């Protein structure tokens, strides 16, 4: 053997960022150079393991696509040509400062700031708010807002950072529409332990890859039909009486009485006691039950009362009412396994068997943990019950224009089984649970919130609870460029990144001046209709000015999007900077308590690149944003690291970005005055802070008094009130009533949207075909086309990574062999894929692991020619492709190809046909 020195020397710990999982890593350096990166065994998230991406971080650091100097588009060069001249940071800052200062002083809406795969939305959102623009969001609206919104509006938490399946105690695990996951290494650790312990794992997915490969049973399903399956499962659970009725009665709004007077101004609203309830000014808690004992209406959780879940009743004033659960029961009557089988392609017997297995496992394998706790109504419980059926779901359900209601159906299924924040079921992670919906971030509801030289009067993103919370003008028009929180997309809680370029180009609702993009590849795979987006970015008006006048892009790598920029800001890699995984944002909490973590630089920045956070803090200081300057006008924060330590959500609040080692002596947790030594403490402790809570606060947190009081003291929640599961989503009914010209709000949708709102804002889940299918001749375009991310590339954006690109150099379209042969398509042959929006050429690969009505490919492998510093004949360009080229951002009626409730991009909805090329 060669006597080569081993990569053993100095070890620094930090946090990985090859994907959204954020594992602890050990970076081994020799003479200051990175030689080896492995998992940190002392990190509670990944416990020493690492994934393909994490172990390839060294090649990201050394990528030839690294941007190392600020760049300005050369005068006369076209956008997209990637023809730049290097400039200094001083010049880059002056360009931005001058431009942004002018916009801020005149019309702050003309600055739009959209970010992609970052995890620093607490900072970027703060920047946008302090600037005063409403036009800010990350990529959630494109990615998976339906999962977040559908679950948060129903159970007060959602999968991924904010909750997940408790596989340590589950007996049955059902995964729907998931290939790989945000929480990837912890989920892998958990699934393997679960399987070894004899747990049964069922995967519902059109495609058998990733986790589905090791499922004990694979149930193939047609894309976009999950809602029908979930409704049928709920229906069967009711028919078999395999619901946890006590859970439903006590912890959900199943027993709340709904006004069913079709003529009433309050039709479909939940009836409350007349006296106002002051526990929470945003959410009442005096809804009525029909008490079975006294046979009359009483305030819910009155002593000795027991709610009727079924029946129809009349209140003393004559109002006809039904318990919410009765309405659900009526809704589910038609949702038989036979009905769902027609839609999903899953045999009725299979649906029946699955429902029975879910219900019987939840009931027969249930157990009690000897953990005393006290509920929101002061009742003491000696144990916590577990019904050991856990679910996990992702974009396969969410990224459809019917995804919100499908996710509602899943949340209700989980609730019928009594599995919310219980052992072996779904468990929350701090800062969740929050209200249904939460009130911590209030969005402004009118254009007066936007004023020159002033912060936005509210948070740019939040959770509307009714028409009064929409961000619209007096005429009902959207205030935001992406039309989030307008009547078109009322619950667009993550914004709508996929609308920005097209709306700004059209000037609908208005033109903007500057679009700042951070880490979002909006000229490629982060746009629907990629070719059009690229054309729009390069399009000029009659005066010869770009329709989107100024485009600034910050990224660490040359991408398809940086090529279009007027100004490129070179970001650092994750190994070269400070970062926080904050409780104000998307932390790395565990079920048992809050956890946050940091990155610290392990090597200096390459070339002249700078951490984007430092750039934001610098700009905020230059532009004199109120919270970034002292009273005398001087800068408050030196840089990002200084900002993180010293920023407080309110002066003196003691709440900041990091929860560990707060207080002057570093001995306070969650809340405490700033500690100048906080970074050092994190760096000395594996860059992570974990705060396990007492067991009595680890379960039933929607209704756990001790937890709520603690969470309020720790500023995780504003109000210590119970978070009732919304079997019946009254929030949706408020919009629906407005569409009917009734209800408590004076706001009414414009005439052309009334029918749409009345249809889709159904307070009970229902199934409808994805909007695109409603506009498509499905005989001409018989196949659903979807994408998945492979584990070795999931959220890693690493086609420029020499090792990872050898695993996935180009992608195929996977086709069921029977379907392919009928079209005379050879395995490996070139084919044409055509939707009603466009065509592309690619190579086919036979696969028995895909249901015959679906074709699919790995997403984001295909690249534009020479992008990411790959050779012009690189396989990613010559053979790779992205499906976005045959997806439309608009539907024939001119609306966005998005969920009509949340604005979630319907990028899994496209219908295609294929033929040999």
């Amino acid at each position, binding site marked *: 053997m060669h006597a080569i020195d081993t990569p053993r020397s100095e070890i620094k710990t930090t946090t990985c960022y090859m994907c959204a999982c954020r594992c602890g890593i050990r970076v081994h350096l020799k003479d200051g150079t990175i030689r080896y990166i492995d998992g940190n065994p002392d990190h509670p998230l990944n416990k020493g*393991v690492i994934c393909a991406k994490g*172990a390839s971080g060294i090649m990201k650091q050394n990528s030839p696509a690294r941007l190392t100097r600020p760049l300005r588009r050369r005068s006369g060069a076209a956008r997209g040509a990637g023809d730049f001249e290097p400039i200094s940071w001083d010049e880059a800052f002056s360009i931005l400062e001058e431009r942004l200062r002018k916009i801020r002083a005149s019309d702050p809406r003309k600055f739009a700031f959209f970010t992609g795969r970052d995890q620093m939305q607490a900072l970027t959102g703060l920047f946008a708010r302090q600037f005063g623009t409403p036009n800010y969001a990350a990529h959630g609206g494109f990615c998976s807002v339906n999962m977040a919104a559908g679950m948060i509006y129903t159970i007060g938490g959602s999968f991924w950072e904010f909750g997940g399946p408790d596989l340590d105690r589950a007996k049955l695990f059902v995964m729907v529409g998931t290939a790989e996951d945000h929480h990837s290494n912890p989920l892998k650790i958990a699934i393997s332990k679960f399987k070894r312990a004899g747990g049964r794992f069922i995967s519902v997915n059109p495609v058998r890859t990733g986790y589905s490969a090791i499922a004990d049973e694979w149930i193939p399903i047609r894309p976009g039909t999950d809602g029908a399956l979930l409704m049928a499962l709920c229906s069967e659970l009711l028919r078999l009486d395999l619901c946890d009725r006590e859970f439903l009665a006590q912890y959900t709004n199943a027993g709340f009485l709904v006004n069913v007077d079709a003529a009433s101004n309050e039709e479909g609203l939940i009836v409350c006691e007349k006296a106002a309830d002051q526990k929470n000014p945003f959410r009442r808690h005096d809804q009525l039950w029909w008490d079975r004992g006294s046979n009359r209406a009483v305030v819910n959780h009155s002593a000795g009362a027991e709610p009727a879940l079924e029946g129809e009743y009349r209140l003393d004033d004559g109002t006809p009412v039904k318990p919410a659960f009765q309405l659900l029961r009526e809704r589910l009557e038609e949702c038989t396994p036979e009905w769902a089988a027609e839609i999903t392609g899953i045999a009725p017997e299979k649906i029946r068997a699955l429902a029975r297995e879910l219900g*019987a496992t939840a009931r027969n394998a249930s157990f009690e943990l000897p953990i005393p706790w006290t509920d929101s109504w002061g009742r003491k419980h000696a144990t916590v019950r577990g019904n050991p059926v856990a679910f996990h779901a992702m974009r396969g359900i969410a990224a459809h224009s019917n995804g919100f209601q499908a996710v509602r159906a899943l949340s209700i299924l989980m609730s019928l089984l009594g599995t919310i924040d219980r052992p072996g079921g779904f468990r929350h992670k701090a800062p969740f649970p929050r209200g249904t919906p939460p009130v911590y971030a209030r969005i402004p509801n009118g254009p007066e919130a936007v004023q020159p030289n002033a912060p936005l009067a509210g948070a740019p993103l939040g959770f509307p609870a009714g028409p009064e919370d929409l961000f619209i003008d007096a005429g009902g028009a959207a205030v935001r460029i992406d039309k989030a929180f307008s009547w078109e997309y009322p619950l667009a809680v993550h914004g709508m990144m996929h609308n920005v370029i097209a709306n700004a180009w059209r000037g609908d609702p208005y033109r903007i001046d500057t679009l700042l993009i951070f880490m979002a590849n909006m000229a490629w795979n982060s746009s629907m209709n990629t070719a059009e987006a690229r054309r729009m970015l390069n399009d000029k008006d009659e005066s010869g000015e770009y329709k989107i006048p100024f485009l600034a892009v910050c990224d660490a790598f040359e991408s398809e999007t940086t090529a279009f920029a007027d100004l490129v800001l070179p970001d650092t890699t994750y190994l070269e900077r400070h970062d926080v995984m904050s409780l104000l944002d998307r932390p790395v909490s565990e079920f048992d308590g809050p956890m946050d973590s940091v990155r610290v630089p392990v090597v200096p920045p390459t070339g002249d690149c700078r951490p984007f956070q430092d750039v934001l803090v610098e700009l905020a200081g230059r532009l004199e944003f109120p919270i970034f300057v002292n009273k005398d006008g001087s800068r408050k924060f030196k840089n990002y690291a200084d900002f993180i330590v010293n920023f407080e959500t309110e002066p003196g609040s003691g709440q900041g970005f990091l929860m560990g080692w707060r207080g002057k002596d570093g001995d306070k947790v969650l809340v405490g005055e700033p500690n100048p030594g906080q970074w050092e403490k994190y760096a000395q402790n594996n860059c992570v802070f974990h705060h396990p809570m007492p067991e009595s606060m680890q379960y039933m947190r929607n209704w756990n008094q001790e937890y709520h009081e603690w969470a309020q003291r720790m500023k995780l929640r504003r109000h210590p009130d119970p978070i009732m599961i919304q079997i019946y989503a009254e929030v949706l009914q408020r919009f629906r009533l407005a569409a009917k010209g009734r209800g408590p709000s004076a706001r009414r949708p414009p005439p052309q949207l009334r029918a749409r709102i009345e249809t889709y804002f159904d307070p009970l889940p229902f199934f409808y075909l994805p909007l695109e299918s409603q506009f498509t001749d499905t005989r001409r375009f018989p196949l659903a086309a979807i994408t998945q991310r492979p584990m070795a590339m999931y959220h890693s954006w690493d086609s420029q990574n020499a090792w990872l690109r050898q695993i996935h150099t180009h992608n195929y379209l996977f086709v069921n062999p029977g379907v392919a042969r009928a079209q005379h398509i050879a395995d490996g042959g070139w084919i044409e894929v055509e939707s009603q929006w466009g065509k592309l050429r690619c190579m086919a690969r036979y696969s028995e692991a895909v249901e015959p009505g679906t074709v699919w490919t790995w997403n984001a492998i295909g690249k534009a020619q020479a992008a990411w510093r790959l050779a012009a004949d690189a396989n990613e360009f010559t053979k790779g492709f992205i499906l976005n080229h045959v997806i439309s951002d608009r539907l024939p009626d001119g609306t966005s190809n998005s969920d009509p409730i949340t604005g979630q991009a319907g990028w899994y909805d496209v219908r295609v046909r294929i033929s040999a090329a």
Partner: protein
Amino acid sequence: MTKKQLALVIDLNVCVGCHACVTSCKEWNNAGEAGPLTDQNPYGKDPTGTFFNRVQTFEVGEFPHTETVHFPKSCLHCEDPPCVPVCPTGASYKRAEDGIVLVDYDKCIGCKYCAWACPYGAREMDQQEKVMTKCTLCVDRIYDELLPPQDRQPACVMACPTNARLFGDVHDPESVVSKAIRERGGYSLMPEWETRPANQYLPRRKAEYEG
């Protein structure tokens, strides 16, 4: 038969095909004593490179009774390795002390006889270094007393998020690998070649609903 025989036992019941073992192996060995593991055309057309460990994915059965199998494959450290006797220079050898099959790069002339003799396709010719390479079971980690004891394992074993890769002495009946083989139906690849691979695989096991 060597007294001690180190080996990997790979649990196909939990392998999700994430490739963590592939790149962590590449990463360690690229920088370690067996490296560098070169790449050809890394940012161009048809990139190729040396990997000691690869995951192959294949499908079994017809829709809807399809199994997708992720199959990590590296040198199996055969008890009777056919790659060793064919080597004209003695570069390819099996260690008496622990049964690891290694290549001495200084003796290797790159003739590829060993690759032809290996029925598993587990050897990789490094196109730049012009030497035959293969899995070393991280022999430069597992005996390194400067590493903490829990780190003295192959890089792939440390990395694997599903703990699908077990490492130990298959000649010690009490080792974690021997127990896994015994209790979970461990099997060898292509026993008919009589190479007696030290590495073994654990099969898929289905949990059925018994309600």
